[in-house]
């Protein structure tokens, strides 16, 4: 939506008008600057859809093919734009189908506002048709939720929802609106929420904590940074860069932190975690000061906590007090907004470099390159590898594409090998590990950032979990590039079965359909590659396409992702084979 239109909507919102609850929903969304929302109509939300029909020139509703697709599309929209994603569904099954996306947004701190229709308030609790207690169901996976049963409460509930979703550590909220509240009238006046008295979204950064952190870092011989998504959510990319460069600190990233700082930078030492890079995992247990920024020491990052960075002083920057000492006991906690606290830290740091220490990372990288990376991206064996597909995408995108990955082996390969020059470019389901995330999330990402190249990298398993969203891509003409890396297996589970279950491949082998025919059934240009000599040209054709494009690459069936920290092992036990 153009800025003038948004301003006009905001002006309209400031005057009091007598309107229906359902119109108030739509006007409230517009007053919050919503230009696109994703959803699926049904009985209990029909009055709102009727208003969306009237306002369709001002607010674009995207009909997904399943409510789960709507939630993930809203996530993709939020992740690439930094704005609040909006999903809408009817009561009962419509609302419950949103839950996986909401849970995903909760664990990955993605700002979402979900609006659900609910049965008439006099029917609440009576097992009415399509009644489900969505407020109860969504409670553990939302940052906040509420049920509105009166039309006059709608604007304030939506204002509070947007405020809570986007402020502090972002997260999903759900507003459940009974049908009678949608139908009844109210005097509409929209006022943005400016605060909630019981909620302190951004703790103030304590200068003493900054000084304590700076002193540890200034005296460190082997400092190491691990940053997470908090840098992206806090729009602190520049401040992070300043800290890294000023103090010359090798810096690694968690999966959700990817792209906040360019992969090509000499101080970028790669990804930590179960399938992260060899050097940052191994040297986590060698550093003397570990600086964690906007990350939450997830078990996939730390491995066994009893042998995680025990030798190091640990500094933890986070906006959420509940993250401090949750998994790892820290020596200095710096609460606050990453943009502000990193700027303060940068001021307090001495200019420095750690060349010998950095060389330890480079030496271990050389080992990883020889034993793993080279075989992944420059394979000489007959079968295609996932890594070489990523390499071709990098060549065509110059590292400027947004990569939306699903969950599994292809996800780890995508995160390991994609070049990232631009922030907010790695859109993936990190915490929840939701297969089926990528296809709808890519739709949301492409619609939020139409000028950006959006490439979805998906396995043959996850692709079929939300394959129906090809219909949305076709209807919306969303120019998403879809790459299915087909190994005819649920590859990551198969890898674990091979390594830890004596190759008993229980229910992981897939007999797959003709994916090209399916894409073509949705009138999406499609191509299948089975040989190496076709790959470069096929990726080039896909990336050059102005429209959506489906590329299936048949890769080696039983390749494994390495390095790997076996579940429960220490980061220093990271395996190269």
């Amino acid at each position, binding site marked *: 939506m153009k800025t003038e239109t948004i301003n006009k909507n905001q002006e309209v919102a400031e005057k009091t008008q007598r309107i229906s609850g359902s119109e108030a929903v739509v006007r409230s969304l517009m007053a919050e600057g919503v230009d696109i929302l994703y959803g699926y109509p049904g009985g209990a939300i029909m009055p709102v859809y009727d208003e969306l029909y009237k306002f369709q020139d001002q607010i674009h509703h995207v009909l997904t093919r399943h409510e789960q697709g709507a939630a993930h599309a809203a996530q993709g929209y939020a992740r690439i734009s930094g704005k609040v994603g909006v999903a809408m569904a009817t009561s009962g099954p419509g609302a419950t189908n949103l839950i996986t996306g909401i849970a995903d947004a909760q664990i990955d701190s993605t700002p979402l506002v979900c609006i659900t229709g609910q049965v008439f308030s006099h029917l609440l609790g009576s097992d009415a048709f399509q009644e489900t207690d969505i*407020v109860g169901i969504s409670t553990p996976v939302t940052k906040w939720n509420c*049920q509105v049963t009166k039309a006059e409460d709608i604007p304030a509930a939506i204002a509070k929802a947007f405020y809570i979703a986007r402020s502090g550590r972002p997260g999903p909220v759900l507003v459940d609106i009974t049908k009678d509240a949608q139908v009844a009238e109210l005097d509409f006046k929209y006022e943005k929420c400016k*605060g909630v*008295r*019981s909620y302190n979204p951004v703790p103030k950064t304590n200068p003493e904590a900054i000084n304590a952190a700076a002193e540890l870092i200034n005296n460190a011989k082997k400092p190491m940074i691990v940053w997470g998504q908090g840098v992206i959510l806090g729009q602190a990319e520049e401040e992070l860069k300043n800290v890294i460069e000023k103090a010359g600190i090798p810096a690694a990233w968690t999966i959700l932190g990817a792209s906040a700082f360019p992969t090509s930078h000499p101080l970028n030492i790669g990804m930590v975690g179960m399938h992260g890079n060899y050097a940052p995992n191994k040297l986590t247990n060698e550093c003397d000061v570990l600086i964690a920024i906007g990350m939450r020491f997830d078990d996939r990052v730390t491995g066994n906590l009893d042998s995680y960075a025990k030798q190091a002083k640990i500094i933890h920057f986070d906006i959420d007090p*509940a993250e401090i*000492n*949750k998994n790892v006991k820290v020596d200095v906690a710096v609460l606050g907004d990453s943009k502000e606290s990193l700027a303060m830290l940068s001021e307090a740091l001495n200019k420095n470099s750690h060349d010998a220490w950095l060389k330890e990372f480079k030496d271990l990288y050389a080992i990883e390159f020889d034993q793993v990376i080279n075989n992944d991206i420059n394979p000489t064996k007959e079968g295609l590898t996932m890594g070489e597909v990523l390499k071709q995408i990098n060549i065509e995108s110059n590292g400027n594409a947004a990569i939306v990955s699903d969950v599994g082996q292809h996800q780890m390969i995508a995160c390991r090998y994609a070049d990232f020059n631009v922030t907010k470019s790695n859109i993936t389901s990190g915490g929840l590990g939701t297969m089926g995330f990528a296809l709808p999330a890519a739709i949301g990402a492409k619609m939020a950032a139409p000028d950006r190249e959006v490439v979805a990298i998906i396995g043959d398993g996850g692709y079929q979990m939300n394959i129906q969203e090809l219909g949305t891509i076709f209807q919306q003409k969303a120019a998403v590039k879809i790459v299915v890396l087909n190994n005819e297996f649920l590859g990551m589970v198969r890898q674990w079965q091979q390594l830890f279950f004596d190759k008993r491949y229980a229910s992981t082998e897939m007999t797959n359909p003709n994916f090209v025919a399916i894409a073509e059934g949705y009138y999406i240009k499609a191509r299948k590659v089975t040989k190496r000599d076709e790959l470069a040209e096929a990726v080039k054709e896909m990336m050059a396409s102005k429209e959506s494009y489906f590329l299936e690459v048949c890769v080696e069936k039983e390749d494994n992702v390495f390095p790997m920290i076996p579940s429960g092992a220490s980061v220093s036990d990271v395996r190269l084979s």
Partner: protein
Amino acid sequence: MSEDIQSFTISVYTENNIGLLNRISAIFQRRHINIESLTTSQSEIDGVNRFVIVVNICEDTACKIVKQIEKQVETIKAYYHTEDETIFTESCMFKIKSDLLFNEPQIQNIIKESYARIVTVNKEFFVLEKSGRRNEIESLRGDLNRFGIMQFVRSGRIAVTKDQMKITELLTAFDNQ
């Protein structure tokens, strides 16, 4: 921080909103912690509710749980305290056949010695009420059980802390922002 399991009283000041009980209890549920007792009521501040939750956990867990409760949007403040740091009590009621009051002279002594209060007496039954520590209530129940108890009910713990809570200051600070 001690790893020993002990009884903690968790006090939570919240807005008075529907669904908050669910949100708070879910934090215990997801860690597989049994709630020994839970009481919610108006606090010393109008419009602010107070939860008193008793759980048997280690201090490290208590600390993490309190932060996760406080993270909920409608929680104003949460604390955990050991038994030594609080003044606490429970309340209970017994419904007993009235005949016993007249036929068993011992009962009158039990009532007198336990400082229990007779709430009502009619032809069929009388009702005793007692406040105190769990062991006092259990001891009274044991004594009365010999004669037969028609109904027994015990409330959750209510507790005030020896330390100040400073909730009013927090709310005033917000209003002045």
